[in-house]
């Protein structure tokens, strides 16, 4: 039985009453305004995605109908099937693309989580010469995304002879500042007393890291994983890998979709299916991990 602050038992009936009480300082007009704004902008945010999903299931005659419809009338799986037929007829097999994708994503993410959590543990739980400065660097580099750094990055990878290998994508993913940042911030919420008492009991740093801290930061690990997967999925590194057998599924699909400026009209349906496949993966990952991601983001604040 739960007891409230005054010492009274919280019965089922009382809990219902407590919940029914409106939050203080809330006007009905304000609530209506909030719903209005959210519905209005929600429609704006959802519209292109709804359009994309519907397009993927439209038969060709509905895609080219005039005036165009938002919603599909006779849904068909034809476009998705066509996409897979095109992919299966390519001289590089579908399973090869899939293997490349899974390998790059798994290797990149696992390495990233291990390396970043190890470093984050050191910076979060101890203060040593250079630790503050290093974390400051991490925060600043959160702003520099790969579009700004692609040229020196290409030169470095070329020096390492990694261009056109898996490593050109996998190894840089290990060092992404975002995952390090989130893990460090979340580790800050693990009480230092846990670490200290383990130390008194004679545990080594490695034992404290692997047995005490890591199990407690699972939400952050999951979040860093989702962000890493999304990063690898959404950024087909076409500059870095150009051998067809080494390309990933997103890159292969992007090649089929083509550019909107040289539209492949005959494949309009396939394009729509390709866009659908491209967006389903990151969105469903987010849905699956949403509560853990929000738990992690709650500790993301930067103190200046």
């Amino acid at each position, binding site marked *: 039985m739960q007891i409230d602050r005054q010492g009274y038992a919280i019965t089922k009936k009382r809990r219902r009453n407590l919940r029914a009480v409106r939050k203080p300082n*809330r006007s009905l007009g304000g609530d209506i305004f909030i719903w209005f704004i959210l519905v209005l902008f929600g429609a704006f945010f959802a519209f292109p995605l709804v359009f994309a999903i519907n397009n993927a299931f439209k038969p060709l005659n509905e895609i080219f109908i*005039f005036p*165009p419809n938002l919603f599909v009338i006779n849904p068909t799986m034809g476009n998705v099937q066509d996409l897979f037929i095109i992919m299966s007829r390519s001289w590089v097999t579908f399973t090869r693309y899939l293997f490349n994708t899974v390998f790059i994503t798994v290797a990149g993410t696992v390495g990233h989580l291990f390396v970043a959590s190890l470093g984050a543990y050191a910076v979060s739980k101890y203060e040593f010469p250079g630790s503050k400065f290093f974390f400051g660097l991490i925060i600043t580099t*959160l*702003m520099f995304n790969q*579009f700004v750094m692609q040229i*020196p990055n290409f030169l470095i990878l070329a020096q390492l002879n990694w261009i056109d290998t898996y490593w050109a994508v996998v190894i840089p993913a290990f*060092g992404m500042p975002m995952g390090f940042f989130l893990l460090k911030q979340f580790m800050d919420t693990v009480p230092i007393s846990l670490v200290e008492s383990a130390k008194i009991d004679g545990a080594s740093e490695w034992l404290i890291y692997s047995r005490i801290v890591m199990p407690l930061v699972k939400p952050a690990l999951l979040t860093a994983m989702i962000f890493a997967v999304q990063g690898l999925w959404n950024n087909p590194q076409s500059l870095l890998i150009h051998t067809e057998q080494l390309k990933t599924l997103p890159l292969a699909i992007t090649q089929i979709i083509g550019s909107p400026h040289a539209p492949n009209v005959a494949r309009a349906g396939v394009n729509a299916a390709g866009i659908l496949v491209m967006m389903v993966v990151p969105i469903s990952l987010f849905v699956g991990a949403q509560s853990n991601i929000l738990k992690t983001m709650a500790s*993301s*604040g930067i103190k200046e």
Partner: protein
Amino acid sequence: MTAYERYKAKKRAMRAHTWAEMKKHKVLYLFLLPFFLIFATFTLAPVVMSLGLSFTYFNVLETPRFIGFQNYFNLFLSDDIFLIALRNTLILAVITGPVGYICAFLFAWFINELPRFVRAFVTLVFYAPTIAGAAFLVWALIFTGDAMGYLNANLIRLGVISKPVLWLTDTEYMMPVIIIVVLWMSLGAGFLAFIAGLSTIDEALYEAGLVDGVKNRWQELWFITLPNMQGMLMFGAVMAIMASFAVGEVTQNLAGFPSTDYAVHTVVNHLVDYGAIRFEMGYASAIATILFIAMIYTKVLVGKFISKIGR
């Protein structure tokens, strides 16, 4: 002992102390080492290299040749297209940065006021465009310039326009269209941080505020919510700066490369032009360096502003 000697001794003692500290924590340096090496190679080194190469002429085949500030002089004094790109990037950053940032916060705040069971769904609706990747290509269908385009067809049907508008090739409409698309897809990780931050503020603070005379939710926002979220606000700002200065992929895919009259040509597009097409790496590095400086400067400015909130 003279003052100088005292100073020297003090410094020596400090250095000895630092060295002792470093020795004491040598395991931790070992922990940090793997991440640091990769981070330094693929994130720090590119920034330093950009800075270094920006003072050279470098075409990848020959060794870089030092030419001082020549690249910067050329950029600002004789490259008209760079100035157009700079103007476009600043317009995009000044509009999509703050507007996107404020929208992200307001949406998060509104969503936090909703009943618990719809929050997860509404969060998904607003955040999905950020992670949907190639889905922004759908905007190309919506804004297609002929009468078959979704927007054109419906505006003609409603009688708003009589002939199709070239949304993505007419210089008059390109910038607003790009701004809309960028705003649509860049609520970003900051939005999630805001949602998470809002839900973790202690309820007792609001009760105390009520006693102290907070009258409505706007006062609650200014006096209680915002000051307790400064960390999240800073994180959101960093994310917004990243998204708003690095616009390039969207313009390239929707408006073409180069776009009509360079109307939405951004600094990132210019960088790709010189780096990946003309192989003038020194010049491209100068462009990247200018972007880095602009981003860091903006971050410092925003940080000063955020620390004043609620005072």
